[in-house]
């Protein structure tokens, strides 16, 4: 993809853990993200899925430089973000925004909704009538002009999430990272917010990185999907292809574990039961990180880390023994 909006190459993020007391003072390092590469095209939605500890949220934060990557390259619209000065980075950040999971924690309870939505405009020093912009943003996300004077506690979870979206849209971004944006919402409310993301993208043409652990929602909204496990991409490709014909055993197991709201399908299908939990990222398995839970693992898997390889049109997976 030459004309991609976002290029991520070899992204690594390490966190230093405090040494346990009396444990030889050896500093321990967690590699939350270990060499992740992907592109996001203009107007595209990339779904980032994985279980806890897979590094999906860290990837999102590194893309926005809310976290400083340890290594690797993130280019946005052809510009390598690492080469930018603080002021230049601020200019680029106008065009990349984030919506957080918890609509109760992400809005300042003491600010009116209008002030929260206008804040990015103020911070970026944009002149003009913010009031008008706020009203148009509120209407864009399905709220109304008189909501601007109210405070967050007067709104339900779904409405608050819409306010968070309006704030993210204030600076006309080209990319929005949606970090578990509907996980805290009840299903009947979730559907409306998912539809809102669909509609906004159709109207405004921005790209999304949609981070979620709910695979059904990701299937619905994403054009392409990347499946992460312990800081690595196991499989990436067009969403329908990955869901219908997964080539990595982990993707296959993950999909078979998702409960589907259809008793006949649920009771009729065979399920791959993975053993144990996700290993600690402090001490990941050698070779393929999934091998300790994989039913296909061989000696090769513990010795050599598999590279991402193309299995079908645009579909890549990192496995020595890919699924047919």
């Amino acid at each position, binding site marked *: 993809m030459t004309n991609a909006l976002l290029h991520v190459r070899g992204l690594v993020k390490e966190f230093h853990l405090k040494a346990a007391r009396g444990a030889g003072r050896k500093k321990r390092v967690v590699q939350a993200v270990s060499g992740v590469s992907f592109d996001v095209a203009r107007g595209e939605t990339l779904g980032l899925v994985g*279980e*806890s500890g897979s590094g999906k949220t860290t990837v999102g934060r590194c893309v926005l430089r809310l976290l400083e990557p340890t290594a690797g390259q993130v280019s946005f619209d052809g510009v390598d973000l690492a080469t930018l000065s603080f002021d230049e980075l601020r200019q680029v950040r106008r065009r990349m925004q984030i919506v957080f999971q918890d609509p109760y924690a992400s809005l300042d309870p003491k600010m009116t909704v209008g002030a929260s939505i206008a804040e990015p405009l103020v911070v970026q020093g944009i002149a003009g009538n913010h009031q008008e912009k706020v009203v148009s943003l509120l209407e864009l996300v399905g709220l109304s002009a008189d909501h601007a004077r109210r405070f967050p506690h007067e709104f*339900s979870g*779904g*409405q608050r999430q819409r306010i968070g979206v309006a704030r993210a849209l204030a600076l006309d971004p080209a990319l929005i990272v949606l970090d578990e944006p509907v996980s805290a919402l*009840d*299903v*009947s*409310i*979730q*559907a*409306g917010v*998912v*539809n809102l993301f*669909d509609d906004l993208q159709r109207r405004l043409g921005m790209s999304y990185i949609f981070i979620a*652990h709910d*695979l*059904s*929602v990701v*299937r*619905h909204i994403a054009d392409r999907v990347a499946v992460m496990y312990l800081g690595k991409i196991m499989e990436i490709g067009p969403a329908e292809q990955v*869901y219908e014909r997964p080539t990595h055993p982990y993707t296959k*197991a*993950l999909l078979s*574990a*998702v*409960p*589907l*709201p*259809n*008793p*006949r*399908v*649920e*009771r009729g299908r065979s*399920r791959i*039961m*993975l*053993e*144990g*939990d*996700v290993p600690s990222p402090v001490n990941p398995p050698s070779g393929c990180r999934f091998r300790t*839970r994989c039913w296909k693992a061989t000696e090769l898997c513990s010795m050599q880390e598999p590279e991402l390889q193309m299995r079908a049109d645009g579909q890549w997976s990192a496995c020595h023994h890919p699924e047919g």
Partner: protein
Amino acid sequence: MTTPVLQIRDLKVTFSTPLGPLVAVRGIDLDVHPGEMTAVVGESGSGKSVSFLAAMGLLPRTATVEGSVMLDGHQLVGASPKLLRSIRGRLLSMIFQDPLSALNPVHRIGAQISEMLRAHSSMSERAARIRAVELLEIVGIPQPGDRALQYPHEFSGGMRQRVVIAMAIANSPKVLIADEPTTALDVTVQAQILEVIQRVQAQFGTAVVLITHDLGVVARVCERVNVMYAGRVVERADIGTIFDEPTHPYTRGLLASLPQAGVERLVPIAGFPPNMLNPPTGCAFRTRCEHAAEACGQRLPELEPLGNSMTACIRAKELVGR
């Protein structure tokens, strides 16, 4: 049909709040049959957890509980603390979303399970320890003998939930109430825990009440489903009927809002759940229901048979098939 082991009749739970009385549960009837897996589904604030906390006598003093909860011949509403103590953990157990809060961090796992056993029987300490290890094995914990000597922080989230299940079934209760037992877990671990719950249900003949918001989980493991909305059971049916021929507009709305393969556009339910301090008159769902008529505001609809369902909607009959 068998006699229900747990029978809830006209259960009402009222919390006194600074803003006035909040009626969280507004008169529910519910039967749980031996060996059956019953789902109670609903969104946040529907009263699904509060109903069963009330049945267990676990609500704070600000709550007033009315109605009747019969378990194996015992009336639990208004029962003495002594009776409740002898019933909880012996006839009726409950597990929660967060297993860590159910475990004592400073005691070994094995000791916590044997305490549960000895609280309700005259078992010797030695026998209880042996039984604790057996229980850990039943719930699928590898090397149960060694693990029994460890502390809760040495267990992963999925393993802790297994430990809590082992404690809950230690005295072979008649009913196990599982309140969102897999919500905090990753899907691959969720699959394991659901399998454990199904296995102990089969092995011990325990009736399980699964409280959840996840209709996928319901579709996988439950036989009967109760759908709750605003403190009422609005529809009750067997699993096939709920998913294939739902009759209540709320159940139908809930199913239509789920993302599923092949669905291009989701259909959300308009509006949001009512404020329970001041719920709408009549049917609480009418403010969000596209089929609401004037009559819906006049009285609280009762569950009535319709096809294979029990449904609390005065317009359900004319709407079915549309």
